[in-house]
């Protein structure tokens, strides 16, 4: 037998691998799935136990197919701007005139006696006024500090919830809680629950994408699928180069991917010809076609150069300080525009790696982090609005907890060194888009910004509210895992909605 390396055969069948052939082949593959496989899939959903039946049935070949909501939704996608390390509420969105007045004075004893405070960190004694100046913005005069001059221009879009509280004063557990609902590892993240519940619009892209340079405290468990299937895991997109791991073969094999996949599929078809009744074979054949389409689409979505110069500049992707977060924000707009259900940004950077965690040098730290993010976030809101996407997109800005109005006793007492400690007892977040009534605040903290006071809301309340905006009931959305009904909010009925958010 001659080696095929000698080019003396000119078999006309070769052209059967061309586009026309492939289309025919694809048609065949799809037909195969719909008849035989789907019949079996339906059968597979019949489980011998009642509670399992109620978990949402997932198409094994296309797990991201859109699924109905429980009730009409206000939004169908979300950009979650997670501020890891935790920004200080009293230096950003929770203006406290009393704190500004009492700089250097001890925290009153009545506060110190609160057992919640006693149980948590050793705080410094003295109050520390915010070193930033404050002003009011928008029609309702929303207070925003000088850290966010550009975001402040969107005051009429923002609803600030000033009365959040968290369940832990430690980064990793609190971060896991904000992202997965519980303090311990191993549970599915909010984004995973949403894609499990709703699928996604675009079948060629992941339903849940995460963007970061350095990930959050606690690592990838923050955006993992837990006991839900891997299709619902947060997929890390990078904002330069091929966006996804293993998206393309090593460059040396470039250019032959289509031929190789065609060969895989031909081998699979021959193999399958004598093996009927195995839907998993169809499943894998379909997965290879989807992978090929995903490859093309993901490559093009990462191509920020295709945006206009004006757009690029608006996000600040050519400025040193805003380039990184700007690219992430621009990419997140491209992703939601293409039908990705949830995009989550973690603001971490290699240096300082602690994000907003200003135990010392609050002034420098917050200046730096705000400078990096303010313009890109404002650009994102502007861009979403211009494109009519903001109406159906929920934008959430929050950290894992807040910071104390007292200075951190470990930070030293030089003004330039001073920082603030973790404060899970009261902090601010904001939301925009998706029919949220902007220019408003919900709830409040005490006169110094330490405790959530009026209308306190837990992380579970926030999750429940987000699910609600997507048309999902937080009790109704569950997955039966090892005999146990698991929910994002934990035990049923353990969360309430943040009231008044949607007017």
């Amino acid at each position, binding site marked *: 037998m001659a080696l095929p390396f000698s080019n003396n055969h000119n078999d006309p069948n070769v052209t059967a691998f061309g586009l026309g052939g492939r289309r025919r082949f694809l048609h065949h593959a799809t037909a195969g799935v719909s008849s035989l496989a789907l019949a079996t899939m339906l059968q597979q959903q*019949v489980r011998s136990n009642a509670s399992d039946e109620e978990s949402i049935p997932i198409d094994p070949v296309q797990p991201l197919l859109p699924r109905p909501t429980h009730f009409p939704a206000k939004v169908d996608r979300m950009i979650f701007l997670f501020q890891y390390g935790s920004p200080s509420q009293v230096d950003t969105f929770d203006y406290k005139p009393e704190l500004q007045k009492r700089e250097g004075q001890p925290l009153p004893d009545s506060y110190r006696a609160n057992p919640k405070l006693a149980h948590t960190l050793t705080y410094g004694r003295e109050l520390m006024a915010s070193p930033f100046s404050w002003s009011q913005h928008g029609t309702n005069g929303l207070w925003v500090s000088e850290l966010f001059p550009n975001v402040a221009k969107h005051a009429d879009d923002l609803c600030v919830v000033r009365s959040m509280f968290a369940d832990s004063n430690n980064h990793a557990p609190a971060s896991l809680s904000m992202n997965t609902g519980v303090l311990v590892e191993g549970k599915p993240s909010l984004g995973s629950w949403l894609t499990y519940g709703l699928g996604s619009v675009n079948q060629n892209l992941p339903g849940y994408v995460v963007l970061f340079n350095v990930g959050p405290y606690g690592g990838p468990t923050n955006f993992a699928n837990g006991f839900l299937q891997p299709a619902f895991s947060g*997929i890390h997109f990078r904002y330069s180069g091929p966006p996804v791991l293993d998206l393309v073969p090593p460059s040396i*094999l470039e250019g032959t991917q289509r031929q190789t996949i065609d060969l895989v599929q031909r081998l*699979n078809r021959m193999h399958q010809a004598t093996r009927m009744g195995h839907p998993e074979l169809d499943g894998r054949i379909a997965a290879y076609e989807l992978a090929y389409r995903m490859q093309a689409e993901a490559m093009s979505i990462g191509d920020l150069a295709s945006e206009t110069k004006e757009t690029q500049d608006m996000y600040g992707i050519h400025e040193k300080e805003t380039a990184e977060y700007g690219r992430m924000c621009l990419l997140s707009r491209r992703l939601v525009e293409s039908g990705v259900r949830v995009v989550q940004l973690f603001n971490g950077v290699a240096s300082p790696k602690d994000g907003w965690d200003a135990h010392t040098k609050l002034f420098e730290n917050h200046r730096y982090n705000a400078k990096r993010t303010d313009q890109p976030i404002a650009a994102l809101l502007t861009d979403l609005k211009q494109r009519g996407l903001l109406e159906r997109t929920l934008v959430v800005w929050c950290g894992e907890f807040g910071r104390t109005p007292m200075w951190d006793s470990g930070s030293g007492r030089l003004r330039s060194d001073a920082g603030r400690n973790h404060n899970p007892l009261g902090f601010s977040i904001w939301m925009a888009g998706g029919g949220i009534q902007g220019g408003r605040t919900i709830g409040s903290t005490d006169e110094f910004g330490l405790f959530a006071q009026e209308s306190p809301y837990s992380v579970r309340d926030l999750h429940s509210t987000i699910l609600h905006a997507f048309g999902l009931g937080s009790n109704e959305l569950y997955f039966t895992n090892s*005999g146990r009904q698991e929910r994002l909010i934990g035990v049923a009925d353990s969360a309430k909605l943040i009231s008044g958010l949607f007017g």
Partner: protein
Amino acid sequence: MSQTRICRFLIAAVAMLEFTIPASGEEKENSIRIGAAWQDTRNPVAKLWDGQRLDHWALKVPIRMTVPSDGISSRASTAVDCFVQSKQQNVGLRLSKEADRRTLIRRATFDLIGLPPTVDEMLNFISDETSDAYERLVDRLLSSPQYGMRWGRHWLDVVRYADTNGYERDEFKSTMWRYRDYVIDSFNTDLPFDQFVHEQIAGDEMTSEESTDPRSQLRFTATGYLRLGPWDTTKSKFDTEEAGRDEILVDLTNTTGSAFLGQTLGCCRCHDHKTDPLLQADHYRLRAFFAGVVFDDEKVINSSEEEAKIAKHNAEVDTRLKPIMMTYRQTLQPGRERLRAQTLSSFPAEIVKLLALPEDHRDAATSQMLYPYLKKLDFYDVDVADQLTQAEKPAYLEALRLVRELEKEKRECDTIYCVKDKESDIPATHVLEGGAYADRREEVQPGIFSVLDPNVPEIVSPKNSKSTGRRTSLAQWIASERNPWTARVMVNRIWQHHFGRGIVATPDDFGYSGIAPSHPELLDWLAVEFVRSGWSIKHVHRLIMLSSTYRQSSQVSTESFAADPNNQWLSRQNMRRMDAETLRDSVLAVAGSLALVTTGPPLWPEVPEAVLRAQPGIYENAGRLQGYYTSPEKSTNVRSILLVRKRSVPMPFLSVFNLSDASGTCGRREVTNNAPQALSLLNNPLSTRAATLFASRLAVAHPESFQEQIDDAFWSAFGREASQEEFALLHQSCRMIIDRLKHRGENGTESSNRSNDPELDVGNARVLENSSVERLAFAELCRAILNSNEFIFIE
């Protein structure tokens, strides 16, 4: 042997309450026995479910079932077949014909050792016409050291094994692998399962301090089971140790419930169980057995003579080190003074004044205030060294070199991660309202599930007099033939890995919300047989694998598909996709690059920087073992069980193929087939590299013949030769790919927006760099073969 030692309290309870349900005829044959504690109306569990759910099948101790004989056909060759056929009769199904030889050896080899058979092994088996060829095959595989690698991996899923702590820091537990090796070794030596259970729960209590039993060190290692759970080491930093302690106890209680007993104790942590007859108090009664547990992270396992020898050696080194250390410190002194002066100048004047006071003149408040400043004056040597002048540096560097050299001469003892009980002051265990650790309700004593025995058991005195004996009592109850769950749960796990689905399809849940057994009599027969054999796991493998049920073909006939699409009644074998580790190991094996080393510290596979960056702790402090310590690429071509399992960075390739999550018991992995998997198997450097090595291996073996290369490739990957049609297809594809490669870049549609990306191209198929177009094209054929359904599915 410990299976005959039944916890005294249980004997008492059973003796008192044992009864036989009056039955007649066949029912009598299947009569059931149970410690009927639930019939006692004083038992608080009787209030649950109005007594309705108390006689669940799984609560009854399995008894030996009669093997059915009515209407059993000649296809039945073992007891297992008789049980299966008797169910099939009811629905008009039959066993399929036996699978052909090549399918059988592929199936048995993957099942028992998790690797493909070699071409020689296949050819030998196919041509072996002796009547016991298959039996000998099974025995050969069971005695392979690779067997423990495969079945040890299944067990590691059950006990949530990982090499790191998890959470923010996710530190590497550098000797946790000794537990992993203990597991592999236990499977290889067929350690009786009751002993295996006992050692993991209470191995430390089984040995007295003076014991010279060679097993005693292994028993300590076995308690690594209790040290495996996720653990947040920053808890102490944030005054939340109490919460951390609670999390550890929750983990131990829930894992022990699901791993050994198939009971969902996590469900009754906050309230009475929603579906099973388990009280909230039962969670805490079980938890109380672990109340004394403390971590013992550096336990030395060398013999005392060895330890003394090492200590003596190190003392000698220290004697020589002492003068050198003095010199070393002196060389740093000028830098230290400069740095101190500099640092002091940044402190407020009052602080400097206070610091000048002698230490014994400081009151508590002053000391507290000075603490952060003193911390800043506690310099690292490297920072001090930065202050040295060019003239001062050489002396310091030379001293440093000498210190390092001597330090290297020191020897370390072998240590393990394990647990022990506190010697005194065992904290009381309380029921916690809503599971919240600070919200204590009534105190409880250690106790088993109330539905079996609501009383407080007597705690036995362990051999290790420093321990409480609580865990020994628990272990004796779990590893007992009278425990209704233990044997059933384990034989079900074994069955599941031979058929893809357990007799109970929810292997970690044998309660009401679990799925009822498809073949309850078979399950009980196997469980009793398991115990009777001395809890031999290999015996159960033989029982299953020698049956015609196991050996039948996976071909689906129209009628069996129509009657039983899910194959609940086993009228055919199931086709199964390789699990993550089997896939990776097999890709390497077929490429010829898998190194079959059997033991030792974990290896760290190369992972793209982009993946590592998801875990910020990695960049924080390498000294605390938080980093990622990549091993040389070649050394990582070992079986996946030997790769490090870092909780925060699961290896991407494995993770996309449904790797277990190490946060809790995972008795059954989901199997999905999706596009990200296709991308991984197509593009991950692991497979592109393997495809290339595979191609090179074939080129070297058959330099002259394309056909021979293809034949070898098919035999290696599929266990058969290529058909004429397939050969023609590969031939054509090869030519087309060569054509593409020669003309690429000319209208490069596929590569238009690809930037140079060293970061994601880990290993950038380095082996490919100097390959000819022909070699590359053949590598592409190999890549296609490794991606095909026939390779990844086991029939």
